[in-house]
């Protein structure tokens, strides 16, 4: 299905543009730069829509930016394992009821969040940043960047399975059988059939949030190492071999997994062009990152380089990037000090990434979402850890983001009592829904209707519509 589309787009491209022979390096073989190819395709678009559709100067500029690849970008950072929201922003501060409850629930772990006035969270002074979350705290205090904080985000009837809950967040719906990611459906709507880098996972396995149904997406572990060399063959023979592979990859056989392999093969060779552009034109980061050995840090650096890459003046047409935070957060036992180490590397890395983007002048077209599949149980277990919980925390970061809270901290009062923040099973009650957050990101940042991407987003208020926070 998607492969037919893929093949058809090749055919269409051939009808309107000088045919690029499969296997020829993309623009070089035709004497066209990427920019002129883009502008030609824009020209075709204008011919179709006519001048009236492109009313104002802004829209023309937006269209040109679009053709040049300067899309607004959403960077998703997944914190794997269900991070302990009650440690990231701990209920330590000016509300002694919270503190007393926390001491009851967590006689061992509560002590790991030392009281420090500098860490009090300005938007809700009953909460304090974990000392290891100083990176996020500093971003909050940054005068240019905005940070929106969801201290208890989740969904109704929480599922305590990592895999199911993560799946809900990835597909953007409470559906166990979903197969496309919420960002994938966005790419299916606005993306192109020949641009795998529009949705890129910085790592070895494709983020399910980016799973599409008909446009290609990419995964790349290390942009400098991404290429396909032949041992003992070069020049014309190697080019001919690649051409044969690309031609085979563009065909559809009707066998689902064979076609999937063909799609990936074609996307891989396409991606080489983008990666070699990034590797050769974008300088390595000049700003400083944490010195820890971490693929998350490496992938943040690579993301900044990809966003800073220009080929004949045009940006790479990236729209969505998926990263995995440093470390695992499934802290059933001995939560500290591993949690602190992982949190420090993750949040300091994020802080460094924003400095890097700013140094490259790319920050204005980027927004970042940091999320985890759930939070952990407010009561600690007997292994100095916490079992799976319900509401977790999420952050949206960027220069255009409105600083503030997404939903309030519900408190730790036991179920049944007035103002209860805990549910019957002792887990933290969610005060915001991730689907509302997604709808807000799609509509307020990416500029597309959430209806059709997030199921239920089109419902009328009062008829089950999600509350969309004002994020931008």
């Amino acid at each position: 299905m998607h492969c037919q589309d893929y093949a058809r787009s090749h055919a269409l491209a051939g009808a309107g543009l000088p045919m690029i022979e499969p296997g020829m390096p993309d623009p070089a073989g035709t004497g066209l730069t990427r920019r002129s190819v883009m502008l030609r395709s824009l020209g075709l678009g204008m011919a179709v829509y006519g001048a009236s559709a492109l009313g104002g100067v802004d829209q023309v500029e937006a269209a040109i930016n679009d053709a040049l690849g300067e899309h607004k970008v959403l960077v998703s950072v997944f914190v794997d394992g269900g991070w302990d929201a009650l440690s990231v922003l701990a209920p330590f501060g000016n509300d002694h009821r919270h503190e007393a409850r926390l001491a009851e629930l967590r006689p061992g772990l509560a002590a790991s969040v030392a009281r420090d006035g500098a860490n009090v969270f300005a938007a809700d002074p009953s909460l304090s940043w974990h000392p290891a979350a100083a990176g996020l705290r500093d971003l909050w205090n940054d005068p240019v960047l905005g940070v929106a904080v969801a201290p208890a985000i989740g969904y109704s009837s929480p599922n305590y399975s990592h895999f199911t809950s993560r799946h809900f967040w990835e597909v953007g719906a409470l559906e166990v059988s979903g197969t496309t990611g919420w960002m994938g459906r966005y790419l299916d709507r606005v993306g192109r059939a020949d641009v795998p880098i529009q949705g890129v996972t910085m790592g070895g396995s494709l983020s399910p949030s980016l799973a599409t149904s008909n446009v290609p997406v990419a995964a790349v572990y290390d942009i400098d190492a991404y290429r396909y060399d032949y041992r003992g063959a070069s020049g014309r023979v190697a080019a001919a071999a690649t051409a044969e592979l690309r031609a085979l990859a563009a065909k559809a056989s009707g066998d689902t997994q064979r076609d999937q392999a063909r799609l990936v093969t074609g996307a891989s060779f396409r991606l080489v062009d983008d990666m070699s552009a990034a590797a050769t034109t974008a300088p390595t980061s000049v700003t400083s990152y944490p010195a820890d050995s971490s693929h998350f840090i490496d992938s943040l650096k690579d993301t900044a380089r990809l966003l800073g890459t220009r080929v004949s003046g045009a940006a790479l047409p990236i729209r969505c990037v998926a990263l995995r935070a440093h470390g695992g957060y499934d802290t059933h036992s001995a939560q500290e000090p591993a949690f602190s180490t992982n949190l420090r590397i993750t949040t300091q890395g994020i802080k460094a990434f924003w400095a890097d983007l700013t140094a490259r002048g790319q920050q204005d077209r980027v927004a970042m979402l940091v999320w985890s599949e759930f939070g952990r149980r407010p009561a600690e277990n007997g292994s100095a850890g916490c079992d799976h919980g319900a509401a977790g925390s999420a952050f949206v970061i960027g220069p255009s983001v409105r600083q503030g809270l997404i939903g309030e901290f519900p408190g730790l009062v036991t179920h049944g009592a007035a103002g209860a923040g805990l549910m019957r099973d002792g887990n933290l009650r969610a005060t915001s829904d991730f689907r509302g957050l997604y709808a807000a990101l799609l509509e307020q940042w990416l500029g597309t209707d959430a209806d059709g991407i997030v199921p239920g987003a089109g419902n009328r208020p009062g008829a089950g519509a999600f509350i969309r926070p004002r994020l931008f």
Partner: protein
Amino acid sequence: MSPAVLTDPLQAPAEAARLRMTPPADAAERLAAATKKKKKRKPKKLPVCTAKDLRQQRAWDRNQRLKKSKRKKLTKPRKCRVVPVVPTPTRPSPTGPVAAPPVTTPSPDAFPTAPVAERTDGLRAYSGPFGVKEATRLLFRGGFGPKPGQAQEFAGLGLKAAVARLINPGGATLQGPAPAGDFLVGGQFAPEDRWGHGHLEWLDRTVRSTDQLGERMTLVMHDWIAISDAGVGARQMRTSIQLLRDGWRGSFRELMMKITVDPAMLEWLNGLGSDKWSPNENYARELMELFCLGADRGAYTEADIREMARALTGWRADWSEELGLHNYRFDARRWDEKEKVFFRGQPYERRGKFNWQDTVNAVLDHPLHASFVALKLWGAFIPTPPTPVTLDELVALYRSSGERLEPLVEAILQHPDLYNGPSVTKAPITYVAGMLRARGRGIDDDSWTWICSGAGQQLWSPPNVSGWNERAWLNTTTYSYRWYAASNHVHAEEIDEDSYRGSTETPQQAVERALAFWGNPVITAEHRAALDGLAVDADATPYWNGGEHVRRTHRQHALRMLVVVSPDYQVS
């Protein structure tokens, strides 16, 4: 691109709806029948605890929790064995559940209960032509691909004998070049000492073992009940994998009993340190969600997880500098001896002072267990979901065979859906081992660890407790590691350019030489056309890198790559 090409039958919407079934009407009867047949527990070493023992034990435990200064002087209670007061239900009789008329038209709401005397429509064997193509598919799904000539040999046997050969290979031996290279320690792998050697040692078995299905099933189990060396020591890892290798042919119930208290599992899912004061839910959850019942089928609730976590308490181990974790044992004092209720409100609810064995039995007696196993196993071999009739018969076969996986595997490997249905992407291990087998090459390079890791599958290191995501093996990164794997072979046998001096090799001869390099695999017509296209194309234009002999050498190297990096070769 959508990774969702391999339909996980447990996730497919229609199946999910179908499987969210009401329990069987006779569940309560069966439970009652099973309960009556309770075997008398025989204490192994320790005497059975008397009421006095238990009183003393409780007093001792209470005392131990006090500050030292406040403790009373008590006599230490004698060691004894706690026996649940309420009779523990045991497994249903091995001859299968209560007889019912054979299922002919399954209702989507009925739970399959019928033992099927002979294989009828649902488990009929494939009856179409069984040639080299089909034999190749069988060898890739039930093993790690054919050695040169093996697909022809299996095709000659015919389907049933070919499957029988996989099921019963006549003992497991390692055949082919022994491991070699300076990464070995004294000529051997050192899986407990060197990083990556656990992977290499097992990869060697996938390449050389004559019991191909045994290694395939061990890997299926490793993916199903996934323990990772990220959280478990190498010694325990190795023992645990051997447990799967030795146990998969026997009763699944016995295997789950062993796995539940396997040192690696106790460490991996926090069985150690889970005691009656603070039970840890990790194993209880995954026992039901991932290993035996499946998520989102309505099989259990969060309350069941909490109750079972209590029943599973009591395991501990010692730790020392030189031995690490050792002396894994059940300590009745740490076990929660109070009553638990499993599956409250269901016809199969059970209530009692359950322990870990009772928990495993309760989960495996659950009416949705057999269909979970059948779907899980089916999905390991065939990408399309089974029909309801087929599923019913697999369930019946599982129950009537003493809960063994082997008869199910045999039925699945013979099933028409395997041969008539769509291709499956080869897992990275299958791809890498398959090329080594095709080349007749042993493990003479430790690069296979990082190559397989980058391609998405390092043995002993599944990404998490749910195993690998078999629906997403291929992406633009993992493809690049498959390319490295192919390159490794081409580089290892690089042709001397001078050997092509004066050669009159035609394009067709060049393609045939490249295919022979890989043991003459069965390839698609479009793949063959791409090879032919390259062979001709490489002749067509002047070559700046040197003379004709250089061009022909390069052509052969590129053709060898194109045989195995082709998208069509990634699937079988």
